[in-house]
Every structure is written in structure tokens, then in C-alpha cells.
């Protein structure tokens, strides 16, 4: 007979692991972030927006994430179409290649870009040899947040491609054909048919890219140590610096988590809308 209650017990180990290693630490961070000078207060949060270093870190991280989301979408969209249109052996090859960066440690990608674009990197050397570009001047950008955009895209574009490949193959092409048969112009089809069809997925992909770049720091760490002031690295610096109260780091962490969570909710919503 139908007795299903016991199946809820099967969820317990997962709940326990998440509780102990995720929820508990997160609650700790949350409570401590409201602790300043021996009492409950919002002082740490005020500091996040007042203190130059913190608010600049937030701005830098947002700039990095917005850039990767936009450029990732702009590059991922045509590439995903390429994957979508390609035939059997090529398609599998493209998908396999796309998955390669996803399995890499962020550290590996950071070092790969040093070898590629660093002061004595491959491309830097090429540019020096053929165009006489100063290697030091050229490679300096790699160690700024703009350089991070370039490196992050290496593991972000594949995410965009995978999201959009699914969107292309779920797309209802007969709608486009119907619009064409009714004599609609290309711009009309783009605005009235293609965008409503692919827009939600594009939004989902972009929010995923945004959230991942907001939170990741492995690649940045490999490239610059903690020299680039993005939010995760500033938090990292706070805990290694004994003179700073850890509560401030906690407040920064909560701000970061709120941003990534909001964006991830957006991501999930866009998917839900697409399926509705």
C-alpha cells in the first residue's frame, strides 16, 4: 500500500550536510555581521557603503560581473547558434570542447592566461614581435578587473553556450516560418518572434554569468594575488589581516550573498517563465 512517509527520511542526510556545512556557517556570518563594538548594530553595513575600499570593491565586482554577463551573452549567443546548427560529429566535438573549461579549476585558468597574455606571454610576445607593442604596457591590463573579464570569459562563455543551445533546440521554428510566410520583415521577426522566444534563456544565461563572476575568486587570485580589489578578494584580505574586525568581512560577505542570491533567483525565474 501507499505509505510514503518513510521516503522523507531519505532526505535527512542531505539536509544534515547542508545544515552543518552551509546553513549554520551562513547564519553565523549573518549574526556576526550585525555585531560591532560589542553590541548589535548596523555599523558594519554602513561601513560597507561609506568606506572607500569596500564600496569600491562592490563597484569593481559589479562592473566585472556586468561586463562578463554582457560580453558573454554577445559571444555565447552566436557560438551557441553555431553549435545548434552543426551536424553530428562536429556538434559532439563542439559540445565536448565547450565542456572543457567547465571542468577546470579557476587556478588553472588564471595561470593559463598568464602564459597567454602575461608580461612574457605568448600573445604579448607575438604582438611585440610583429607590431612592436610594449609587453609591459600591454600585459598590465591583465592584472586589472578588465583583464579578469577576459580570463573569466574563458569559463563563462561555455555556460552561456550550454544554456542557449538548449534554448535553440527548444525554440519553435515554425513560429519563425509562419512569420516569414506572412511576410514579416527580419526586424519584425527579431522583435516579435525571436526575442520573446529566446529572451528568457538569454536573461537566464546572463544572470548565471553575473552570479558566477560575482562570487568566484580563484582565477583572480592566480592572476593577481589579492591585488585586484574585487569583493571576494577584499573579504579574503580581511580575514588574513588581524587588525580588522572579522564582523566587517561578514557584513561584506552578506552583501555579496544578497547580490548573488537575487541574481540566481532571477535566473531560476527566467527558466520558469520559459517553461510556462
Amino acid at each position: 500500500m501507499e505509505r510514503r512517509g518513510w521516503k522523507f527520511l531519505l532526505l535527512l542526510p542531505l539536509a544534515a550536510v547542508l545544515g552543518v556545512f552551509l546553513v549554520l556557517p551562513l547564519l553565523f556570518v549573518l549574526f556576526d555581521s550585525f555585531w560591532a563594538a560589542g553590541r548589535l548594530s548596523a555599523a558594519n553595513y554602513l561601513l560597507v557603503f561609506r568606506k572607500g575600499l569596500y564600496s569600491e570593491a562592490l563597484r569593481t565586482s559589479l562592473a566585472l560581473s556586468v561586463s562578463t554577463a554582457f560580453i558573454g551573452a554577445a559571444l555565447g549567443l552566436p557560438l551557441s547558434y553555431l553549435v545548434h546548427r552543426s551536424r553530428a560529429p562536429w556538434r559532439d566535438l563542439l559540445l565536448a570542447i565547450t565542456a572543457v573549461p567547465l571542468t577546470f579549476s579557476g587556478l588553472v585558468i588564471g595561470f593559463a592566461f598568464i602564459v597567454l597574455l602575461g608580461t612574457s606571454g605568448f600573445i604579448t610576445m607575438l604582438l611585440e614581435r610583429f607590431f612592436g607593442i610594449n609587453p609591459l604596457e600591454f600585459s598590465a591590463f591583465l592584472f586589472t578587473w578588465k583583464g579578469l573579464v577576459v580570463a573569466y570569459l574563458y569559463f563563462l562563455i561555455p555556460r552561456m553556450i550550454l544554456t542557449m543551445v538548449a534554448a535553440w533546440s527548444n525554440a519553435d521554428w515554425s513560429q519563425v516560418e509562419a512569420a516569414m510566410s506572412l511576410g514579416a520583415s527580419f526586424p519584425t521577426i527579431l522583435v516579435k518572434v525571436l526575442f520573446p522566444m529566446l529572451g528568457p534563456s538569454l536573461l537566464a544565461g546572463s544572470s548565471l554569468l553575473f552570479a558566477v563572476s560575482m562570487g568566484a575568486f580563484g582565477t583572480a587570485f592566480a592572476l593577481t594575488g589579492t591585488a585586484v580589489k574585487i569583493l571576494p578578494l577584499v573579504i579574503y584580505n580581511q580575514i588574513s589581516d588581524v587588525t580588522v574586525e572579522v564582523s566587517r568581512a561578514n557584513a561584506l560577505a552578506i552583501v555579496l550573498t544578497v547580490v548573488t542570491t537575487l541574481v540566481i533567483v532571477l535566473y531560476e525565474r527566467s527558466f520558469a517563465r520559459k517553461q510556462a
Partner: protein
Amino acid sequence: MKPSGRDLVQRALGFACFCLYFAYVLVPILLLLAGSFGERWFSTLLPEGFTLKWYWDLFTNPMYTKAIGRSLLVAGLTALINAAVAIPAVYAVHTLNLRWLRNLYDSVILLPIAVPPIVMGLGLIQSFNWPGFSLVGTWQLLLGAHVVYTLPFTLRPLLANLEMIQWNVLEEAGLSLGAGMPFLFRRVLVPNLMPGILSGALMTFAMSLGEFQLAVMLTSSNSQTYPVVLYQAFYVSTGFACSATMVLIVTSLFTLMGVLFLGRLFGMGKAQILFGGGS
């Protein structure tokens, strides 16, 4: 039919994009590969000479070999614990077939992105550090962190697998034929869930092996995992750093090949298996 001029241009354009994308993904890897076998690589376009010295140095240096061993241990245990935690949970989510539970599951899948590793690490450092009892700096705490961080990689393929074989109906068919649950699990569930279990375990293993962000926060000098010592290798010499990096690249590529092979063997959607998690 002869392709028209426009067709040819389109195809050429497509092929060019194809090649560029290939180069974009593969050139960095090939450079690292070349660097790892090159004797010298200083202010030249490509490394010069051929040597196995860097790999020899790497595998004879106790700091690195110990870290490799520790990483293999953590990654192996992570994959095992994840399987033990995820298989029952996914089974429950699939067979209970409740909308709110399914929504909750979808959120859990996204947790490691919603809560960045820096935040998780920060929380773990503080909540597992008490006078007289501290796990901070031990590999065991890192193990716990990795279990949570890599959960999506185990959960995703498992649920996709259950949905693909429509386990709910298979279970009912088995019950109606008189089989008991243990028999059904052993003879039907496990064999049919193998691709999901294996590809999940492989991905989880690889993710844990290469994970740096939590490791750098949670380990101390006597519990460092491989990515943490790899970071230090960047400051040794280019050749050594390249070879140390290649170790991770090779394991990643093997993992990927394994997952793709499993996907092909069992006809599962590849994108579905691979998608997820933060770098």
C-alpha cells in the same frame, strides 16, 4: 544541387568561427603543455628544448606528492559521501513527486552559486573554531565544504537519470510483478542508475580535486591540498608551474572524456550532466 554563393560565405563564416573557438579553448592548454616539457621559456615566443625535468621535480618533491595524496583522499571521500547523501535524496525527490519538494531541490542545486565559496569559507572558519575544539586547518573540514560545494554535480545527473528511465513507473511495474524493494533496487535501480552515479562521481571527484577557493581558506600548511601548493608553484619557475598545472588539466580532461563516454554509452544528454556549479 550546387550551393549558392551566399551559402558558401555562410559556411565559410561558420567554419572560421568554429576554428577560432577551438583555438580559443585549446591554445592555452597547448601552451601549458609545451611549457611543461620545455627546458627554458624566458622572453621567447615558445619554450626551448625538451625535458622531463619539471615532472621529475614535481613527483619527487614531497610537498607536492603529499598534497596530491591528500587531494586524492579528499576528492575520493567527497565523491563517496556525495553519492551516499545524494542517491537517497534524489530517489525521494523523484518518487515523492511533490511540487514543493522539486522546487526546493532546484534551489539546492543553485546554492553553491548563490552562496559564493568565499562566504561559505568565511562562515566555516568562524563556526568550526572554538577554544578547545577547532577543525579549521584540517582536511576534514575541507571535506565537509567540498561535499556541499560539489553536491550539484552529483545531484544533477542522478535526477536526470531517474527521470530518463522514468523510475516511478518502473518501480510500480516491478512491485506489481511481485518484486520487493531490495530486489528492485539491486536488479533494476542500481544497474539503470549507473551512468548517473558514475558521471556524477567523476565530475565531483574532478571538481574537488581542482578546488582552490575553499582550500586556500580552510587548510593550513600541514593539510594543504594540491591546488594550494600549485598556487605556490606559480612562483617557482615557468616550466615547473606548467607541469604542475598540467596535472590538473590532465585529470580534468580524463574526467570529461569519462563523462562523455558514459553519456554516449547510455545515451544521456551531455549538457544536462555537465552543466552547473561555480568555478
